[in-house]
């Protein structure tokens, strides 16, 4: 599929637009399938979409820029808390709540990025964990705005555009989430083809070489962190809108680690990889933990080992590479 190509030859504007339309169509069709085939599991699917934002956001800094982080949930959680708080303060419009999440996520991304991208390698990883833990500790302590360990409850968003009420079956929430995902994904796919994102990939490949063509690396990584913060904050806000509660788990270390696992599973450096990784992990988690509540973690561990051994670049990257090779061989014949 053209939209899944990882390393693209220069694309014309028309090809780019075609890819955007294909991407939108794919998300809309898969979203519709989810709605009609699993009408009783919409709450689960909504959760998956919320997490997908976190993984896509992580992909922007890890997959595109090579930043190692295990504190990314902070960006997601702060977005969720911010959206929850404005709702409790009376701003119940879901779009405004999303916007609040984006702003809070961007601000957190800025702070995190300023700190984390100063370094490379292990110091960077340690700083990212420290930042995540700091935010988690603050979330626990500042119970007046986070609800502490009880969580922030009673978030009751108003109807979307003043018309579509959120229902107990999650129908409105699901459709709303799919549309937000679709818009975000198409926007980010455009972004991923931009000179800015291309330069980020170049920085990941060889930072010194990038500097030698005149790039000031640090400010660029910080900007990318802000973009990632906006996406994660959006996902956090969306989750707060849909579930009505924000708990400490939304900023926790475990959430950050899981997001990294999802990204590696799907394929870093590819937005589709991030999205599909999140979906596959959550599906696996959902069904395997239902079938085997005590052993599912072992099976997840085994799955990851198999993926890393046989698909070291992630499922999506590996599949697209093999399709590309196959096409080349056919063309050579």
């Amino acid at each position, binding site marked *: 599929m053209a939209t899944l190509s990882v390393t693209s030859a220069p694309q014309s504007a028309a090809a780019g637009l075609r890819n955007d339309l294909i991407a939108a169509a794919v998300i809309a069709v898969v979203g519709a399938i989810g709605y009609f085939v699993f009408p009783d599991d919409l709450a689960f699917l909504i959760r998956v979409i919320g997490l997908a934002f976190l993984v896509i956001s992580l992909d922007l800094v890890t997959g595109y820029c090579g930043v190692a982080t295990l504190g990314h949930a902070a960006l997601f959680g702060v977005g969720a808390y911010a959206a929850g708080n404005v709702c409790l303060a009376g701003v119940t419009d879901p779009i405004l709540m999303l916007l609040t999440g984006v702003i809070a996520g961007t601000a957190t991304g800025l702070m995190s990025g300023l700190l984390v991208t100063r370094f490379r390698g292990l110091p960077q990883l340690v700083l990212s964990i420290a930042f995540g833990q700091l935010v988690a500790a603050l979330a626990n302590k500042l119970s007046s705005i986070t609800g502490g360990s009880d969580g922030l409850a009673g978030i009751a968003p108003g109807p979307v555009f003043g018309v579509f009420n959120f229902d107990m079956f999650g129908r409105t929430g699901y459709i709303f989430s799919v549309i937000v995902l679709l818009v975000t994904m198409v926007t980010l796919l455009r972004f991923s*083809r*931009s*000179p800015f994102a291309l330069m980020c990939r170049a920085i990941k490949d060889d930072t*010194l070489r990038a500097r*030698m*063509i*005149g790039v000031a690396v640090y400010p660029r990584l910080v900007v990318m962190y802000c973009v990632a913060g906006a996406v994660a904050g959006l996902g956090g806000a969306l989750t707060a809108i849909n579930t009505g509660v924000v708990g400490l788990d939304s900023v926790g270390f475990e959430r950050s680690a899981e997001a990294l696992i999802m990204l590696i599973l799907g394929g870093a450096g590819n937005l589709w990889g991030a999205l599909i990784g999140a979906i596959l992990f959550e599906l696996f988690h959902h069904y395997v933990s239902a079938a085997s509540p005590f052993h599912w973690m072992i099976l997840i561990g085994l799955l990851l080992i198999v993926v890393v051994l046989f698909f070291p670049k992630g499922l999506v990257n590996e599949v697209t590479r093999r399709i590309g090779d196959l096409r080349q061989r056919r063309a050579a014949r």
Partner: protein
Amino acid sequence: MTALLDVQRLSKSFGGLRVTDDVSFTLSSGDRVALIGPNGAGKTTLVNQLSGDLLPSGGRILLGGVDVTTASIPERVRGGLVRTFQVTRLFTSLTVAENVALAVMQRRGLTKRMFSSVIDRADVRDEWQSVLSLLGIGHLAATPVTKLAYGQQRLLDLAIGLAMKPRVLVLDEPAAGVPHDESPRILEAIGRMSPEIAILMIEHDMDLVFKFAKRVLVLANGALIFEGTPAEVKENDAVRAAYLGSYANARRAS
């Protein structure tokens, strides 16, 4: 005429070890200068100081009359000082065209754009295509860098440097690792570069040096021990003792 690059009494020490020892030289527009010296003479250390990867312990570097001794790497690049590397450094997850286009877009201030792909815009495309054609790798534009032969990678390394439209281009062993029969292609590519660029080339391959350079700087133990034309360098006893002796012996043996 003001020198494009003016290196004044540059020195660098690591602890007690003096790796660059009071080095002075100038480069003017159109210069074709080779920097030679035995292994460990401090050639790459000197280049690293010119490019800003390493700060000198003493002395000054002027680029177009401006003191860039402590300037950052991007500042020097903006001033027109561009280098390539002894070991190829490329953006390996990208295609050949993307590698060169990035340099073009960066120079033209287009890489801050977040929502429009300009790599295919006519003026940008013309530029990266012409650089690739100049170096004879235009047909490889859509090829991923990882699928290039080593000689082609070296040419791409040069192409990225050229796409920056340098005033001073420092080539750190452009033919290193390239099979001997392919090194003329590198030389040919360098020969096609704009005559206005001042080029400083570090090279071990003496055939290449003598074909390329109008002027040769000889470095030994961090200090410049000789500067002259290729013919003078061949005849100089001090140079022979420090460097060419071993080269001549090697040639005789082969």
